[in-house]
C-alpha cells in the first residue's frame, strides 16, 4: 500500500476555453481520493511539463477540445522526456477522432477518453494504471 497520495495534474493545453470536462473530471478524481492540481486554462506544453515536474506529479490528465491535440499532446510528452519525467503517466480526453487516438497512444499517451466516457470509467482507469512514481524507481 502506498502511503503517499497519488498526485494528478489536470491541465488544459491550448487556447480553447471549454473547461467543463476538465473541472468535472478533476472533481471526480479528488472525490475518489486523489490529490488533484488543476492548472486552469490556456496552458502551454512548457507550463504543463514544468508544473508536473515541480509538483512531483504521478500523472497528468489533459483536456482539449480545440483539435490541436496532435501537436500539443506530443509536445508535452517530448518535454517530459527531456525533463526526466518520462515515467509520469499521461492520459487525456476531448474531441479526439479514433485515428488520432491510436497515433497519440503510439506517441506515449497511455489512454484517451472520448465524449460520453463516464466518470466511473475514468476513475477506475486511473486507480488501475497510476502508481506513485517513487515506488517503481526503488
Amino acid at each position, binding site marked *: 500500500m502506498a502511503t503517499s497520495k497519488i498526485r494528478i495534474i489536470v491541465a488544459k493545453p491550448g487556447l480553447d476555453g471549454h473547461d467543463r470536462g476538465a473541472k468535472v473530471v478533476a*472533481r471526480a478524481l479528488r472525490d475518489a481520493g486523489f490529490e488533484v492540481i488543476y492548472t486552469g486554462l490556456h496552458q502551454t506544453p512548457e507550463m504543463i511539463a514544468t508544473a508536473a515536474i515541480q509538483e512531483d506529479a504521478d500523472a497528468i490528465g489533459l483536456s482539449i477540445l480545440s483539435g490541436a491535440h496532435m501537436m500539443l499532446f506530443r509536445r508535452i510528452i517530448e518535454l517530459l522526456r527531456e525533463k526526466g519525467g518520462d515515467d509520469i503517466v499521461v492520459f487525456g480526453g476531448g474531441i479526439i477522432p479514433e485515428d488520432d487516438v491510436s497515433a497519440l497512444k503510439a506517441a506515449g499517451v497511455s489512454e484517451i477518453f472520448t*465524449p460520453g466516457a463516464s466518470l466511473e470509467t475514468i476513475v477506475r482507469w486511473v486507480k488501475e494504471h497510476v502508481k506513485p512514481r517513487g515506488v517503481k524507481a526503488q
Partner: protein
Amino acid sequence: MEKLWQLRQERQRWEATTLKEALARQPERADQFSTLSDLPVNRIYGPEDLRGFDLERSLGRPGEYPFTRGIHPTRYRGRPWTMRQFAGFGSAQDSNRRFHYLLEHGQTGLSVAFDMPTLMGYDSDHPRALGEVGREGVAIDSVQDMEILLRDLPLDRVTTSMTINAPANILLAMYVGAAENMGFTRAQIGGTTQTDMLKEFIAQKEWIVPPRPSMKMIQDMLVFGTRELPRWNVISISGYHIREAGATAVQELAFTLADGIAYVQAGIEAGLEVDEFAPRLSFFFDCHNDFFEEIAKFRAARRLWARIMRDRFKAKNPRSWWLRFHTQTAGVSLTAQQPLNNIVRVAIQALAGVLGGTQSLHTNSMDETYALPTEDAVMVALRTQQIIAHESGVADTVDPLGGAYFVESMTTTMEERAEAYIQKIDDLGGMVRAVELGYPQREIAEASYHYQQQLERKEKIIVGVNDFVVPEEQSIPILRIDPEVERRQIERVRRVRAARDEVRARRALDELKRAADSGENTMDKVLECVKAGSTMGEICDVFRAVYGEYREPAII
C-alpha cells in the same frame, strides 16, 4: 376566487377517484418528475396552477409590453426567422467559399467563427497559436484576411454576425475597413459582433485583459457603433456559452440578463442615452433538449427584459424593451455515439426555439462532436429549419403555446427563479463584481457536476450514452483541416508585416497606446491601426501593455 375554489375541489375529486384508480393499476415511472435543469414537473397543470397569472399583465398581446407572446404582432407570418448557420474554418478563402455555398442554398445571414488564436488576440505566428490556426474557425490576422473572407459578398444585403469578444473592437474595425475598401459605406453594412466579455469570464474563457478594462473597450465600441454604424448591433448578450459550460436553464437566463444589465449600465456611464443604444442590443440563447423548459425560458426572457428596461432603466422607446434573440441548438447535447440520433435532437431543439419565438436560428450538424461539420451534415441541419418553417405549420400562428397551463406556469417559474439570481447579483454589486468574485463560475461548476452525477446514476438518460448503448465504430465522415493552412497563414501574416509602411504602422500603435493610457475612446485609433496594416496581435499587445493580462483563478 369562488371559481378557483371550485377548480381545486374538482382537482381533489379527480385525484381521489379517477387518478387513484389509475395509479392502483399502473404506478408512475418515478416518484417525482423534473426538467433537465431539475425544476419540478407536476402531473398535470390547470388554471388553478396559474398563481398570480394575469392575462393582461403576464401575457398581453404579441408586439406589446411585456412581449411574452413575442416582439412582433405577426411573428413568422410576415417573414420566417433568419436561418443563420455559423461557419468558418481554415483559411479566409475556405470560409469565403463556404459562405457563398450557404447563400446559394437559401441561407439568409452570415455567421463567422474565428479560430482560437484570433479569439485570444494572437497572430497566427505567435508561439501560443501552435497547432490551433484555422482549426475551430477562420484565422484573421489583418485587414487583408478580412477582405479575402468577405470577397464578392453583398455586404449591403446580407448581415454578418461575428462571434468575437475579447478583440471584438479590432475585428469590427477590420470589417469596417474591408467594407469601405470594397466600396460600401458605414451606413450600408449591417451585422453583429458578440462583444460579450462577461460571459467569457463566466463561461467561454477567451479573454485578453481583466473584466474592468474589458468593459471600457466595450463602452468605446458602443459609443462608436451608436454614432457611426446605424445597422450594427455591437453587443450580442450571450447565454449560449453559459449553458454549454454546464449551467441550468435558469442560470443561463439569469446570468445572461444580469450581463445585459451590466452593459446597459456601462452604456449609460459612457454618456449614451438608454434609448440611443438599447434598441440595438440583441441576445443569443442555447436551446437544449427539454422542450417546454426551453420554450418557457424564451418567453420568460422577453417578459423579464421588458420589465428591466422599462422599470429599472426607464427606457421610453418600446424597441428598448424588446428582447430580440438568436438561438443555437445545444452543442453540448450532441453525442458522439450513434451520431445520426443528433439529427432528431437538433430538430426537437430547433422546434422549441421557433415556438419560443427566436429571430434567428443555427441548427447544429450531427457530426459536430468530432470536428467542424461536413457540407452534407450542414445541409441536413439547414433543411431541418426549412422543414419546420414550411412543412410543420408551427410558423403560421403566433405563440401557439400561449395560454397552455403548463407553459405559462413554467414561464412564471423561470421568471421568478431568474429574478432571485439577479437580485443576488445586484446584492454582490453587479455582474462585473460577481465575476471578479467567481460567483457565477462556481454556480455553474456546481450545476454541471450535479448533472454529471445524475447521468452516472442514470437519473437522467442520454440515449446511446448511458442507456440504449450499442457497440459501435466511428463511421461518419469528418472534416479535416489541412495542416498546410497554418503554414500558409503564418507566411501571409509575415508578408503583411514586411510589406506595410512600417513608420505609419508604428505611429498608429503608439497613438493607440496614448489613447488607451489617457482613457479616451480608442475606436478611431484601432481603425487607423488596422488600415496601417498593424496585425491583431500587435494591437492586442498594446491593450495588454496598458491594461494587463487576465489570469483566471482556477476554481474546480
